């Protein structure tokens, strides 16, 4: 894949970082404003997909990125499960227990373990979407070859 024209490339260069940062913002404020892990994760994946689409990438590099993203997907799901089981081990045996202190409503650091779940879900969604995208694009590459 060659990538697109210089116009798209330059815009992608300028924008991708900010899209990524906005994704982080949506994840970090998931317990305060609409949004959260899924929406933010979609933005994180969008930033990567934007750069890959604009710049193009050769087949081998895409393969490598796919293994990495599927690995990070598995790890983040395991982390979510571990958080859930940690709630089960702490005190009363409750699966998905919110065991951290709650804080005051409206602050950034509040709502106990929910921001942690949001962060891991964000990583998971980002890497899952990236994996799906790469899986589809790799087959397209194979067809063209």
């Amino acid at each position: 894949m060659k990538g697109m024209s210089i116009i798209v490339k330059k815009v992608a260069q300028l924008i991708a970082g900010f899209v990524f940062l906005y994704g982080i913002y949506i994840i970090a404020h998931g317990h305060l404003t609409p949004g959260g892990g899924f929406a933010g994760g979609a933005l994180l994946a969008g930033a990567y997909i934007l750069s890959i689409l604009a710049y193009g990438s050769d087949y081998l590099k895409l393969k490598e990125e796919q293994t990495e993203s599927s690995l990070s997907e598995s790890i983040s799901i395991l982390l979510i499960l571990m958080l859930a089981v940690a709630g089960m081990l702490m005190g009363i045996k409750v699966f998905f227990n919110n065991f951290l202190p709650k804080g005051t409503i409206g602050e950034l650091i509040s709502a106990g373990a929910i921001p942690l779940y949001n962060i891991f879900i964000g990583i998971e969604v980002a890497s899952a979407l990236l994996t799906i995208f790469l899986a589809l694009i790799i087959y397209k590459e194979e067809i063209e070859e």
Partner: protein
Amino acid sequence: MDSLIPLFVIIPLATAFLIPIIGKLTIYFAKTITPVVLLILCFYSITLLLSNSKETYIVGGWQPVEDIPIGIYLVLDSFSILILCIISIIGFLVSFYSFEYISYYTSENNFYALFCLMIAGMNGVVLSGDIFNLFVFLEISVIASYALVAFGVGKNELEASFKYQVLGNIASFLILLSISLLYWQTKTLNIADISEVLQTSDDSAFLKFTQVLLISGFGLKAAIIPFHAWIPDAHSSAPSPVSAMLSGVLIKAVGVYVIIRLFFNMFVFTHEIAMVITVLGTLSMIIGALLAINQSDIKRLLAYSSISQIGYIIIGFGIGMVVLSKGGKVSIAVLAIAGALFHMVNHAVFKGLLFLCAGAVEYRTNTRDMGQLGGLAENMPITSTSSLGASLSISGIPPFNGFFSKLIIIIAAVQARFYLVAFLAVVVSIITLAYFLKFQKRVFYGVNKNYKNVKEVPFAMSFSMIVLVVLCLGLSILVIPSIRELILDPAVNTLINMDQYINQVIQY
């Protein structure tokens, strides 16, 4: 609150996502950890079955507010533990069988990860006491099964998987629609709570619409006859262990189980719905058997026979519902439901075994066409013997378990004055015997034309088949009254006493 039932979901889920990480280092990790994990679950579920325990678990510790349940409930009662046992036992044997079989394909890690995901989803469906949560788990297991059907990535596999997915998506659409209608009507999602609300409301037209939607949605998953189009393709194209899982367990856990659970424990069923279910069951039984006769592909034959056997199960439950809704003798209903449950267990065992045998034949000869096979009995004694046992069992020959369950269903049908259904059940049983004899004759007896040098399958595969054929004989002991009282009767009691389930959830 000291119950450990979330482990049924947590352990397979964690295994499913450990496999892609550690499996990169050694290929044997996935192959060993999956059977081990499922064996543990197997022991745990059998312990729970024998101790006859009833447990309720609230995820996240959200206690009910003013007696209204607000959390996600996991409910374990005698009926769900029976299904959990089937899932774990068949799952363990199938994953052990795959140890050799799956090296046929590439990317074994993915296979085992998806397999564990499917098990986790089914366990979740069976445990969930919350109708939306049930839908989520159902989707987890069926999405894993979509991927597993397409695992061979040949032309047939992909086409079958696409068909399966389109129909599966329509089924999910209908299920979600009926869930939202139920929520609209009752403002709650908990099955027990919905049932309490429905007992006091009287909007029968609306309820009938929802019930029809639910029957068509879950009927698609359970492959009852007007909704059966995906099953022969999907079951014949999938790798054999997966077909054994799909046919033996998945269509029961996500189809029949949910229909039965919702109609017995949630809705106050009416006479018409009970008749509809009985008629659907009868149709599936007859048409499935008639379609199966003419098949030349082993696995397509088995898939059509699955439709027919699911019909028997549905008939059993349907007769029970008709008798209960007319206010007839409870003992007849108990007999019918017990027969249906017994047949459900038996069908999981012998249909799983038959698919594993078909897989063993395909593993050695690379074909599923009965026209080319023949005379394999000398070369593959274990496969031949076990498939003979399963065939006799499925067609209802006395010492095997299939005979007893069919007998109970037929006796119940006669007692409930469904003479036509009873007669048809006997006829279909004979047709079943006919096409399984054809299967035996074409594959294992007769003249061996093309495959003189094939050997018996490796240990892992033959072990699973031997265990299953022993189970085929051994499950007959479930008709002995004292064992039946221990295992089947509590499950029947949960189904026919609606208050028992509601009390277990609400008063927790």
